[in-house]
Structure formats: C-alpha cells, structure tokens
C-alpha cells in the first residue's frame, strides 16, 4: 500500500519556565492510503499535539511530515480535522457551522445545504438546524463538529476524541456510521480515542503512546475481518487485542 502520510522523527518542545516541555520526542509514523489508525495513550501524552503536527497546524521543533511524499509545511485541504473541543462559531447556527468548509471552498449554497441536511440526519440533529451553539448540549455540539469535518469529504481525517462527549449508544451508532463512510469513501483516518474497545473495533492498527516525552510504546496491528459488525466485540480475537492494547498503555 502506498504511504500517504509520513511523520519522521517529530519532536515538539513547548517553551516552559522549567526550560521546555517535551510533548513529542522522536515520533515517527507512516500511514498508508485507506488505513484506519487509532492512537491511545494517557492524558497529556501528546496525542492532540501529534494531530496538530500531522494536520500542518503546528510546525514541529524538529522532524518533518510528508503528505504524498511531499514535505507538509502548513494546513492542506486534503486533510479534515475534528478537534478535541467542538470549536463551533457561536454566531453561526448549526447548519451554518456545518457548511463552513464548503463556504470556504466556495461551493454554491443549495448544494451545501443539501449535503448539510444529510449529515444532520446522520448525526441525529434534525430540528436543531437553526439553533445557535449556546442552545446545544455538549454531545450535540460535538456531533455538529463531526458533521462539519465530514462535509467537504477530505481524503484524510484526523479525529481527536470525536465521540468523547457522546453516550454509549450514540457512540456505537456513530462508530458504525464512521466505518460505513470510511469504507464507502476509502478515506484515511487517524483517530485519537480513550476507549480501547472503540480503538480495536475501528482500526487497522492501534498506536500506544507514553507520557512526556510522548513516544510510541507499542503498535498493535488489528487484523480483524471487514466489514465489521457490532457483534465482533464479543469474539475472542477482539478481547485478546483489547487486552494487548490495555497492557501496552503505561500505567
């Protein structure tokens, strides 16, 4: 498989009074086209920082990210990001927030609204199209952010705990939807999650990170058959993989 996104020897050091906080150290990662990679690790280990580097939002202190083999020196429209915070614009309604990427790409309004309506149904926000963000619950805001990331159909999706604020059932449903979309559109996904089950269920490979400095401690390939259905979580192979990941996370 062709390598679409490659991070080489990434280090990120944030300035701090104690001389510098090493959030990522010598981190390397190669993601193939169409691959689904999950990243797990303790709070504060540098997962969000990693996604910001991969998305071209944060230039690493050293090292280099390559997209399609070319050095990445800034954000790129092939990459869609869901941030850890919902990051909605409070002056825009739900629909307006969702169509923002299309507005920036200059797509015409009717087509945008059509696609937005579809995604609103997908994330279960019918009836809230015209609501402002202050009228949404935490989970609803997160769902708007998910819809926004999906609307412009980017080749690569970087998801930072997209389902963190969702209840178990909605989360399950969103997992299945995400898999469906990913399979249909053949996207590449790098997703941060705190839920080991979720990581194993969704991904082709789970990356486990350690805290300060953030490094890879383990890579667990997930060779479960696709397409996957919810039942798979009860299989022994699944449990074994989940256990491996669990054990790999530094206590």
């Amino acid at each position, binding site marked *: 498989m062709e390598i679409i996104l490659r991070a080489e020897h990434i280090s990120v050091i944030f300035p701090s009074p104690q001389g510098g906080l090493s959030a990522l150290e010598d981190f390397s990662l190669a993601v193939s086209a169409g691959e689904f990679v999950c990243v797990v690790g303790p709070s504060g280990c540098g997962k969000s920082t990693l996604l910001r580097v991969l998305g071209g939002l944060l230039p690493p202190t050293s090292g280099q990210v390559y997209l399609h083999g070319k050095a990445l020196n800034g954000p790129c429209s092939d990459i869609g990001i869901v941030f850890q915070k919902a990051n909605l614009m*409070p002056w825009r309604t739900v629909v307006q927030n969702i169509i*923002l990427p299309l507005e920036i790409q200059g797509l015409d309004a009717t087509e945008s609204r059509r696609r937005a309506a579809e995604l609103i149904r997908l994330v279960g926000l019918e009836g809230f199209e015209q609501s*402002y963000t202050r009228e949404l619950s935490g989970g609803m805001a997160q769902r708007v952010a998910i819809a926004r990331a999906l609307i412009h159909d980017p080749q690569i999706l970087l998801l930072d705990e997209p389902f963190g604020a969702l209840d178990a059932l909605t989360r399950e449903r969103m997992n299945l939807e995400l898999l469906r979309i990913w399979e249909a559109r053949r996207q590449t996904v790098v997703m941060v999650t705190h839920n080991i089950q979720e990581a194993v269920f969704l991904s082709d490979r789970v990356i486990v990170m350690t805290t300060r400095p953030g490094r890879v401690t383990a890579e667990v390939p997930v060779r479960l058959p696709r397409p996957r259905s919810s039942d798979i979580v009860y299989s022994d192979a699944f449990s074994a993989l989940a256990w491996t990941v669990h054990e790999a996370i530094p206590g």
Partner: protein
Amino acid sequence: MIERSDRLSAYVSASHSFTNSGRWCVYLRSAINFMRRQWEYLLLPLALALFLVLWQSIVWIGGYPPFILPSPGRVYAKLVGVLSDGLLWWHMRITLIEIAGGLVLGLTTATVLGYLLAKSRWLERLVSPYIVASQAVPVVALAPLLVIWFRSGQLSKVLVCALTIFFPMLVNVMVGIRSVEPDLVDLMRSLRATRWQMFILLEVPSSLPMLLGGLKVSVTLSVIGAVVGEFVAADRGLGFLINVARGHFDTPLMFVALFTLVGIALALYLLVVIAEGVLLRWRG
C-alpha cells in the same frame, strides 16, 4: 343607529368574556407583557421629557437671562424660524456630508490600519507613537497647516472628522482582532481559509461586539469632529452656525444648532444600536 348597536355588542361580548375568567387572565398577562415591551420604547421619549423638564427648571430656578440659557420655548420658536427659512437644513446638509465623508475615511483607515497593527507587533511599535501624537495635538494648532495643505474647503473638515473618530475605532479593531479565539483560528487554517475569509468569516464576527463598541464612540464623536473642523475656518455648516450665533449673541440659535448636532449624534448612535441588536442576536 349603527354606532349604538356596535356599542351594545361590545358590551355583550365584554360581559360574556367576564364569565370566562381564565381567558381574561391570559389577556391581562399578555397586555402586561405588551406594556412592558412598550415601556422600553417609551424610555427614549421619557428621557427627552425629563430633559425638557430639567432644562425649564434650571431656567426658572437659576433665573438666567435668555442670552445665557434660553427657555425651551424660545429655542423652539427659533427652531421653527430657521427650519421654515431653510437655513438650518442648508447648514445641516453641509455638516452631514462632512460627517459622512469623515466616517467613511476614518472607519476604513482605522479598520485597515487596526488590522495590520493587530497582526504585527513591530509595525505597531513603529506606528503607534505617531498615532498617539496625532490624537494629542489640538486641531486648532494644526489649523495653518490644514489650511495650507488642504485649502479651506470641505476636505479639511472631513479630515479633522476622520482624525477624531479614527483612534477609538482603531484601538477596538486591534483589541477585537487580537481577542479571536486561537482554536477557531486553527480551525480556519485547517480549512485553508484565505486571509480575506479569515477576516470576514472569523475575525469580523468574533470581534463584532468590540467593533460595534468602537463604532458607537466613533459615530458619536464624528459630529464633534466635523464641527471642530468647521470652527477652524468655514463659511457654512453647523459649526459655522454656532460661531455666528455666538458672535451675534444669539443664544437660542446656538442652542438650535447644538440640538441639531445632538440629534445627528443620537440618530447615528441609534443606528449602531439597532445594528447591534440584529448582529448580536446570537448572544441571546
């Protein structure tokens, strides 16, 4: 005959409703609600009425002669006079044009420059001393230069007006642009928004409260800016009218001119308040 039957039916329906006390309650409540909302609209006229009462009392109690503080009645009579002979309209038109010019010039400059300074610290350090200086120098001291460089036409008044309104807007543009949530900047960057899109889709709406605040100050000061420009050298406009009225000891005329100024300022301010109501609806 028709009138009588109408009254009758009104009476009947009223007595009928009376039995239905639940509905009455609802009517009453909605009426109170309505009055409360109306009350808000009454506040402005109320403020005006209060002012007139206060003014008249000062005239009575202070016992000031009309050339120091004319009574409302006298000023009103003068107002009617200058309205009917077109004098006020004529001078007002001149000043309005200057205000409009000053607003356009001052606000665009303030926005553009404020944006640049917000983005670049070193440009700010280099330019801000000049800006501060431009605000600390009284216009009258600059009069000779203004007259030499811009003649004594309306351009110089537009410039003085622009200079007056420029600074509060500039500072608020800078505060606004610098207060934009960095996470939303990241979002826009990740969507590869152009500089213009960044400005129009993120920076403007997010700093809107501050921009509108700056605008409130600017539109209010625009009036005095134009008038000060006219004080320096003019043969028309409300500032000129004030000067003439002062020179002729015609205090009622001066008050008419002053109230016209206040009226213009209030109208402009009200426009901004209305815009605020529409644009900041999302804050609930």
